[in-house]
């Protein structure tokens, strides 16, 4: 029985639905009652001043990189909803996707505020918010995510392994990004660390469970790890933009988290009695990889699905 507030009021025994809305009928139309740009801006009132000594384009590009990792991984995770082995895993993966989507939204909004020129142009009068324009109106070649985030999962072991490697790496990055001189990036990182700690533990526990489960689950997990391992090294490659924002204390040089990522993964592999794979890294094309906008075909197919509705209605209000 839900009442209207923390004080105990007399329940309305005639109407079983009274109080269901917490006394506020607008809750049937969750969150759309007074929709306007101010109430929709995730950074409304947040100080978006650029720190000294950082190029605005670099800061925006770096925020887009961190956002795209989260956005693309989030979409892939959400594709598991109703396809996971049981309802609890549907919910767990959807929750994880939602956390990452929230991080992506804040980071894309940060990018747009730092340098509005990174936001794709939309028709005059379009109500699409800058972070949505970045998410839904860029081509695959403009996405800056690492390729680990975009590859398709063949079975549940794939998503467990990808989430383990991804969240271990992102947690290590965000732990350091908490010290960013950009107050928005630092705040997104501080919250993200708390969320990613749950994601990494979840993936680590499933990795252990599958590796120490049946012969079948172990074989599938080892096969998934072998498939995904070639994407590991790209995570700690350093793009020029990352190097420059790290130099000025705004970003994190990803090569500095490599040892921590390997140490955490080694811990999981040891208890799971799995040998760290020895596969060589997935090469780029003329040295270009995910951070440069060079992606696998899987990303284009994913974006086609993710973006189709928004692109069909650039003047749409949601």
């Amino acid at each position: 029985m839900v009442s209207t507030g923390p004080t105990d009021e007399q329940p309305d025994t005639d109407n079983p639905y009274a109080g269901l809305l917490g006394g506020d009928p607008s809750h049937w139309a969750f969150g759309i009652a007074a929709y306007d740009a101010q109430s929709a801006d995730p950074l409304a009132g947040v100080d978006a001043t650029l720190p000294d000594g950082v190029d605005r384009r670099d800061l925006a590009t770096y925020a887009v990189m961190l956002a795209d990792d989260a956005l693309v991984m989030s979409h892939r995770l959400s594709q598991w909803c109703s396809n996971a082995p049981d309802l609890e895993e549907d919910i767990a993966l959807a929750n994880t996707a939602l956390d990452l989507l929230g991080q992506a939204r804040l980071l894309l909004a940060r990018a747009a505020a730092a340098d509005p020129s990174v936001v794709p142009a939309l028709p005059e009068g379009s109500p699409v918010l800058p972070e949505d324009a970045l998410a839904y109106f860029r081509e695959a070649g403009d996405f800056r995510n690492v390729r680990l985030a975009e590859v398709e999962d063949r079975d549940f072991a794939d998503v467990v392994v990808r989430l383990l490697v991804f969240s271990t790496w992102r947690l290590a990055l965000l732990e350091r990004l908490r010290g960013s001189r950009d107050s928005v990036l630092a705040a997104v990182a501080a919250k993200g660390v708390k969320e990613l700690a749950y994601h990494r533990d979840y993936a680590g526990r499933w990795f252990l469970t599958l590796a120490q489960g049946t012969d079948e689950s172990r074989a599938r997990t080892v096969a998934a790890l072998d498939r995904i391992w070639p994407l590991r090294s790209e995570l700690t490659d350093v793009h020029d933009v990352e190097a420059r924002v790290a130099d000025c204390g705004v970003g994190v040089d990803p090569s500095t988290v490599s040892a921590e990522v390997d140490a955490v993964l080694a811990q999981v592999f040891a208890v799971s009695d799995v040998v760290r794979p020895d596969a060589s890294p997935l090469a780029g094309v003329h040295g270009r990889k995910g951070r440069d906008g060079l992606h696998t075909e899987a990303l284009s197919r994913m974006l086609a699905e993710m973006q189709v509705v928004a692109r069909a209605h650039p003047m749409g209000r949601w």
Partner: protein
Amino acid sequence: MTVLAADQVAYGVAARVVDPEMPMLTLEDLGVLRAVQVEDDGSVVATITPTYSGCPAMTSMRDDLVRTLRGAGFADVRVDVVLEPAWSSDWISERGRRALAAHGLSAPGPAPRYDGPVPLTLVPTRRAVRCPRCGASDAALTSEFGPTACKALYRCVRCSEPFEHVKEI
């Protein structure tokens, strides 16, 4: 007769707005309402912080604050977001914790603090959770992720009832 300052009146109004997903809690009890200020021109600025990065209730909370404050006579209302410091379940008030328990939800324990590297935990999270229905201290974790971002799922071993636990973060 005591005359309340405009700030206090506006805060009192905003503090009655409830969380859209857990309506037994006000935004004040949840620790989401950070400040309410009346500017010199009479406009009100309420400041809130998200519980989780992707909390879908944020827009709803902002709308509810605007509508409630307008309803109380404050014509010009703005809701700002503050991201720093990040929300912690430690900010849920004592009254909020009692309200959670009274409505069958288990309140969070102390939140972990992560200043340095976050330790990996491969065994299920151990919490001193009490069944909010029968009071038994024997509850089994069903899932670390529940119907909203802020909850885990438990089942009481004694009375067999499932219940939700607000997670430590």
